[in-house]
């Protein structure tokens, strides 16, 4: 089913989507989307939504199952507190992408902004995954408690910019960030440290990137043909000594 969003307010657009999904539509194409917020908010089950244009903030918030593909850039808050499903962005993602994400995947072909993957967490079999093709801004994986973030630095738009911003993984106490290439120690925030990737890590990276490459039609071998650096927490309780009483 095709919906032209044009200048519709988000309430109107999301109501149409909701009604369509209620009616059993499983394939949706949204055209002329521009700035409408909360698309696919809390939608569940098997569902494909293709978006042409620039969806507004909090795309796929609380989403649990659907696959959302954006042919363009997304705004802030993609996949906020998302449970499962997949969000594919053919352009750039912005700030707090994957905030508190607890499952599912977000694949971005281009750059991502600040505080990406902030406080994402693993619970049992739910392991959220974010892959950014370009660079990531400051505070990547801040307070990260679980899940996987991969930063490739291949479609780096701002050519001169470094792959990572500052204070990477500050307060990290779970999960792993894999960066294609070397990481300068000064980029790391409190609590995180660099490690060599293990054989297990390599398997994980390969598995995730295989899917990523399929989605964007990229060459997997070329991507894997580089050293990855792993960023992981030093401790699961970085603040144990912080408080005192008496």
């Amino acid at each position, binding site marked *: 089913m095709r919906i032209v969003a044009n*200048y519709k307010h988000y309430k109107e657009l999301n109501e149409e989507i909701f009604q369509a999904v209620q009616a059993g539509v499983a394939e949706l194409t949204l055209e002329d989307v521009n700035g409408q917020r909360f698309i696919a908010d809390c939608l569940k089950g098997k569902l494909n939504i293709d978006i042409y*244009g620039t969806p507004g*903030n909090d795309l796929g918030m609380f989403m649990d199952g659907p696959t959302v593909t954006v042919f363009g850039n997304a*705004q802030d808050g993609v996949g906020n507190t998302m449970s499962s499903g997949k969000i594919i962005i053919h352009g750039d993602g*912005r700030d707090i992408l994957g905030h508190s994400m607890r499952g599912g995947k977000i694949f971005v072909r281009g750059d991502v902004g*600040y505080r990406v993957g902030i406080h994402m967490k693993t619970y049992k079999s739910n392991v959220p995954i974010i892959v950014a093709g370009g660079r990531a801004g400051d*505070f990547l994986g801040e307070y990260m408690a679980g899940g996987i973030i991969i930063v490739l630095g291949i479609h780096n738009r701002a050519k001169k910019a470094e792959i990572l911003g500052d204070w990477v993984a500050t307060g990290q106490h779970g999960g792993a960030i894999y960066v294609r290439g070397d990481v300068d120690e000064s980029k790391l925030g409190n609590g995180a440290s660099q490690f060599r990737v293990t054989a297990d890590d390599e398997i994980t990276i390969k598995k995730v990137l295989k899917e990523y490459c399929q989605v964007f039609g990229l060459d997997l071998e070329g991507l894997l043909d580089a050293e990855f650096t792993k960023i992981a927490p030093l401790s699961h309780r970085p603040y144990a000594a912080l408080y005192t009483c008496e």
Partner: protein
Amino acid sequence: MCSILGIVNENRKRLSAKYIVEGISLMNDRCNGLGGGFAAYGLYPEYKDYYALHILLKDFELKDQVAEMLKDYVNIYKDEEIETRNVERISQDYIPWRFFVDVPERYTSDADNYIIDLAMKINNTGGALVISSGKNMGVFKAIGYPDEVARLYKLENYKAYMWLAHGRYPTNTRGWWGGAHPFSILDYSIVHNGEITSYGTNKRFLESYGYKCSYFTDSEVLAYLWDLLVRRHKLPIELASEVLAPPFWEQIERMPPEKRRIIEALRMTYGPAMVNGPFGIVIANGSGLTGTAGNGTMVGLSDRIKLRPLICARKNGTTFMASEESAIKAVCKNPDNVWAPHAGKPTVAMVNGDV
């Protein structure tokens, strides 16, 4: 939460208000109708040598009083009411008036400061508010959503090569016409999204340089800081930005020695000018300031840990800066380039020059 948008054409091609109004209106969910406004540059080509004072008058009688006061200080070349139409949701709390003035011969060497002093004097009389005072530019603002304010002022009749727009969601101060953005001083105008946590420090710092903060808004403080740094202390825009959003000491320590010395000096000197808390701002500055050789510029800047959004785009010599990409796409469907600037690093669009 507020919405901001700036559009500038580097070749001084004058754009109709349609674009800025459409763009800012797309972000109405970011504001609550308690303040909207626009700044336009290249507005009065036929009077470009005069300071254009946009003054809000509480009542009609005040007009003569203000005119009398102005006559003591400046030559009034022309004055007229700024045309408005009735807009349902907007109550006409003020009558907007414009005066084109110039500064008497003997004060021309310091004309800018002379005009600032004059504006502050008028603001102190009560009832009259100078909302802009630059040349070939003007500010239009009121309580309402931005599109309503545009209709109120019949913005469709104006053209400008540089536009700023703001939709307000007031937090600290009540919604009133004077508190709406843009905030403007001389050729500088500023639109701002966020709330400054360092207001008291910034205000008291400015006071010791002779500024009087009478609007109790963050944007006023930002405008004065910019005026102090760029116009009075002649810092290049990049460094003035490093004052407002300085790098952290640990970042400074990693800089090459020469740069490090400069940034350290700036932080030590201008520590109280650092703007803390979340902000995204766009500052427009027309040309023609005495003492500055520069062209007109538009500068976009966010706080140093990026707590407020800012997106930029460019198409054929026109640069856009906005809170949301969709606002830009609303008026420019296929920009050549869209990018998210680094936190604390200015994006500068020069009129008659490069981005």
